[in-house]
């Protein structure tokens, strides 16, 4: 099974079904052979520790990727062009997050903070509350916008509930019944001071390692594919004004499958939008010194559209040959801040709602 980027493949559901099946069988056998045991306090303590550290690692991983705007990057040029109705629900949700750095970072900080609270047993209850709140929101987004991380976000929510479960009567007494609750007994792991120091040292190393790898990886990711990654020289949206094929100017008919409507160059890949609103996704290679542009097909690397280009103010003229046809394409660059979504910005004061 090749990883597809989806966490909700058929195989994932089958694995979950197998896990549930095995869990039921093991629980029955365990209950029969361990009938007389009065409690599992010790195993519960170790299981909670395992679940806490699993959640800390996961919350940090998701949190830092949001805090450094790597999970949700910035709106691509093609996102500004695509019509609302032609987006997938997941694409819509992704664009919603990518629009706002502030909200994306806020979501990331919430996840990081939940992870930090889980580091200490005294703050684990509050951390578990945060994990359930944050991850259930993620789960509901995944359910509502068809994002294929439904199983995993559901699992993380369940882990948060598992941490809350032993304190459920205290939570009900405190929040609902207005009754006094006793402080929780937090047992020491070790009697000997040396062992305690060793355990704390290991904990500092583990937590330090999680912080370091996540922050270092995020800084590197920012440079490689994040906001600090270099933009290609032709990054932008080019509206086609004239499309000349073999000295014949093609009229902008909406039924034309050959004539370009736009050339959209993004950081990672580019698109030609034809007049019939179709998008041809291509790998782009620009040499700004020789002023050449190569658009290479993803399905066939020998299928290359090669152009030289000239720039005069905001007019970009591309000239080249493709499929034995001589092409001259006169375009006008459209700046990102010409879009309302980009130029509207934030306003503390709104005398009227600006809801368009």
């Amino acid at each position, binding site marked *: 099974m090749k990883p597809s980027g989806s966490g909700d493949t*058929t195989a994932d*559901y089958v694995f979950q079904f197998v896990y549930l099946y095995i869990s039921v069988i*093991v629980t029955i056998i365990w*209950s029969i052979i361990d009938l007389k045991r*009065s409690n599992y*306090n*010790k195993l519960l*303590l170790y*299981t909670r520790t395992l679940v806490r550290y699993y959640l800390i690692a996961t919350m940090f991983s998701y949190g830092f990727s949001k805090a450094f705007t790597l999970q949700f990057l910035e709106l691509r040029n093609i996102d500004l062009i695509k019509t609302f109705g032609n987006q997938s629900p997941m694409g819509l949700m992704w664009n919603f997050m990518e629009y706002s750095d502030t909200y994306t970072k806020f979501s990331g900080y919430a996840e990081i903070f939940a992870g930090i609270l889980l580091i200490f047993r005294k703050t684990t209850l509050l951390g578990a509350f945060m994990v359930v709140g944050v991850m259930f929101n993620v789960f509901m987004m995944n359910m509502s916008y068809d994002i294929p991380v439904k199983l995993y976000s559901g699992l993380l929510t369940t882990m948060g509930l*598992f941490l809350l479960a032993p304190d459920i009567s205290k939570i009900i007494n405190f929040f609902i019944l207005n009754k006094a609750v006793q402080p929780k007994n937090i047992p020491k792991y070790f009697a000997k001071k040396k062992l305690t120091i060793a355990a704390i040292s290991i904990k500092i190393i583990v937590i330090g390692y999680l912080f370091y790898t996540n922050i270092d990886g995020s800084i590197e990711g920012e440079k490689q594919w994040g906001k600090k990654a270099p933009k290609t020289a032709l990054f932008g949206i080019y509206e086609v004004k004239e499309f000349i094929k073999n000295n014949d100017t093609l009229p902008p008919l909406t039924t034309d499958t050959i004539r370009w409507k736009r050339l959209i160059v993004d950081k990672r890949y580019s698109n030609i939008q034809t007049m019939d609103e179709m998008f041809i996704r291509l790998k782009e290679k620009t040499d700004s010194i020789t002023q050449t542009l190569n658009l290479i097909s993803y399905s066939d690397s020998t299928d290359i559209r090669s152009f030289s280009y000239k720039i005069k103010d905001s007019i970009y003229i591309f000239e080249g040959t493709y499929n034995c046809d001589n092409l001259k394409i006169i375009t006008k660059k459209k700046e990102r801040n010409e879009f309302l979504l980009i130029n509207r910005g934030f306003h503390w004061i709104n005398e009227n709602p600006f809801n368009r």
Partner: protein
Amino acid sequence: MPVRQNINNQDKWKLSTKIIFRFSFVYLFLNIFPFPFYYIGLIPGMGNIFLFIMMDLNSYAFGLEKTF
């Protein structure tokens, strides 16, 4: 004080609590350490058995046997 002396072992858990804990423990453990299931096929003969279980459960549960 070692942890075993600190934990209240006189506690009496309800039968339902014990069953829920056993189930939760196994289910969470399988999800945290899932890799043996991915590599189970390396054990001679186990790959086919596991694949058969997966296909069988899959076809009964979801009717998606064609996927495999």
